[in-house]
């Protein structure tokens, strides 16, 4: 069997499709929630945190697999624990990266240990790391959808303050936005999303659906609404497209998803580069105009409207001088 035939097999495709429609729905649900959260991951510079959370989520899943308990519950517990630790200990980016760097190998090591002790089917083991599509039954689909619904609802509530805090933390602090609450809260939502994504994409490659779509989308537009829509589109096409391509083959699903996702990134990069060259070439006169607008001194002439300046309306006497030394 040639490599091509192993990669793309479409025999009995219709039957497979009907057998695995749960997986396809799960892929679409995941695509939407990952696409939305991916934009915030990009804003908040949390790519490394995603990776760290996914390794601990993997450890949780492997542990529960070993115990014969529900794998999704295990990965959810692992992810939420990791997310909470990272959120609470790593408020500043530098601290955060150290915390993640310490937690991640520990989690991965635990996971490897649990898998080594596990005597069950090997496909279960491998699937946790590199993804799988066969395992999505109706109950798992329900759990994934519930996680997605909770995450999306919470993000909708947090939307404005979270965006403000992510993009403009200094002014957000001054305006009383509770940054210390929003950081850990977002990490929890991220943890839940990672735990859900692991079920299909696998722990090692979660970044391809939780990081890449947001990076690609924000590269081509500064409009937040459009960036979110594009990110959702990229993530959903990657997961669903990856599943559709992987259906017939014998290979794990993740290379299909990661390749699609990377293709979107590449496309966006090229688009942004071409647009950059064009705007430099085409709008040189524009640019000049904008600079000269900036150089224009502000009108300092008489100002109309109420003059409330105290010295103008005599609201108070010339200032008293107070000098106080310690």
């Amino acid at each position, binding site marked *: 069997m040639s490599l091509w035939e192993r990669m793309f097999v479409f025999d009995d495709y219709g039957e497979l499709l009907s057998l695995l429609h749960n997986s396809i729905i799960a892929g679409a649900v995941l695509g939407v929630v990952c696409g939305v959260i991916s934009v915030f991951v990009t804003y908040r510079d949390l790519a490394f945190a995603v990776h760290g959370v996914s390794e601990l989520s993997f450890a949780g899943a492997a542990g529960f697999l070993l115990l014969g308990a529900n794998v999704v519950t295990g990965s959810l517990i692992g992810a939420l624990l990791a997310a909470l630790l990272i959120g609470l200990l790593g408020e500043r980016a530098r601290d955060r990266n150290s915390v993640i760097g310490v937690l991640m190998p520990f989690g991965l090591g635990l996971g490897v240990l649990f898998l080594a002790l596990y005597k069950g089917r090997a496909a279960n083991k491998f699937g946790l790391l590199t993804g799988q599509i066969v395992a999505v039954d109706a109950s798992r689909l329900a759990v994934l959808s519930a996680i997605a619904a909770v995450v999306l609802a919470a993000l909708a509530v947090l939307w404005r303050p979270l965006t403000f805090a992510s993009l403009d933390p200094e002014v957000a602090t001054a305006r009383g936005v509770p940054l210390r609450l929003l950081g850990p809260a977002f990490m929890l939502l991220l943890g839940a999303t990672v735990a859900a994504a692991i079920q299909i994409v696998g722990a090692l490659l979660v970044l391809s659906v939780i990081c890449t779509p947001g990076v690609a989308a924000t590269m081509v537009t500064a409009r937040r609404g459009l960036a979110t829509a594009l990110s959702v589109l990229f993530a959903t096409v990657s997961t669903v497209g990856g599943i559709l391509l992987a259906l017939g083959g014998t290979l794990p699903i993740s290379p299909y998803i990661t390749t699609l996702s990377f293709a979107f990134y590449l496309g966006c990069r090229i688009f942004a580069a071409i647009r950059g060259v064009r705007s430099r070439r085409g709008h040189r006169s524009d640019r000049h105009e904008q600079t000269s607008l*900036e150089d224009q001194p502000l009108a300092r002439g008489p100002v109309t*409207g109420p003059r*409330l300046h105290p010295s103008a309306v005599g609201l108070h006497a010339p200032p008293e001088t107070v000098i106080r030394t310690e």
Partner: protein
Amino acid sequence: MSSPGPVLRIRDGSVGYGARSLWSGLDLDLVAGEFLAVLGPNGAGKTTLLRVALGLHPLRTGVITVDGEPPRRGSGRIGYVPQQRATAPLAPVLVRELVRFGLDGGRWGPGWPSRTPRHRVGEALAAVDATALADRAVAELSGGELQRVRVAQALATDPVLLLCDEPLASLDAPRREALSALIDRRRRTHGTAIVFVTHDINPVLPYVDRVLYLAGGGFGLGSAADILASESLSALHDTNVTVDWSAGRIFISGVPHSPRDLQAVR
């Protein structure tokens, strides 16, 4: 609009961190439209004064009111203009979206696009002559443009008090003067009281009503001519400080640990 009383009132205010006291015994009444420049060496408590007014830091002793009420986090009655940083974490966002953060960025919910906020964002941008920048990405702006947009963001809620934390830092001289003139215009047209923390008094010297100079645990409060004088600053710093006024500009030398001295040493 503001009530007839002072916009910002501090009675016997003192602040500190741990065992360290920054300033104490401060009495300050700032009326509508007044321009107060806050000067002093690093670590004297200039930014802390702003944090106290924003309700982010408590006074150790004394009372503070903003527009007659105790400071409240997230109050729309205060606008805040931060320092322009070379490495701003401002990722992909449009100018009008950044300005809208100032309007309702702290509220819960997704905040759908609608006419009223759009209109107010437009007004805020027009007030700083930045209407043309509305649909540009923040990352594309020059330092001077970004600071104008920052002022628009701070003015979006039409505050009675505008707090500026070294907004002129890292701008060149013409931009410093343009931004200072812009802020002066606002207080004249809208009666917004200004608290302006700055290292360099000269760009705002034509507009300043009073100067608050924080140093060495004490403070000086009064007109620029009285406070920025060799005698006053020497008393505050407890060493010989020389102040030269020349052609409407002020040159201060001899301030211990001031950035200018450090530059001279290098």
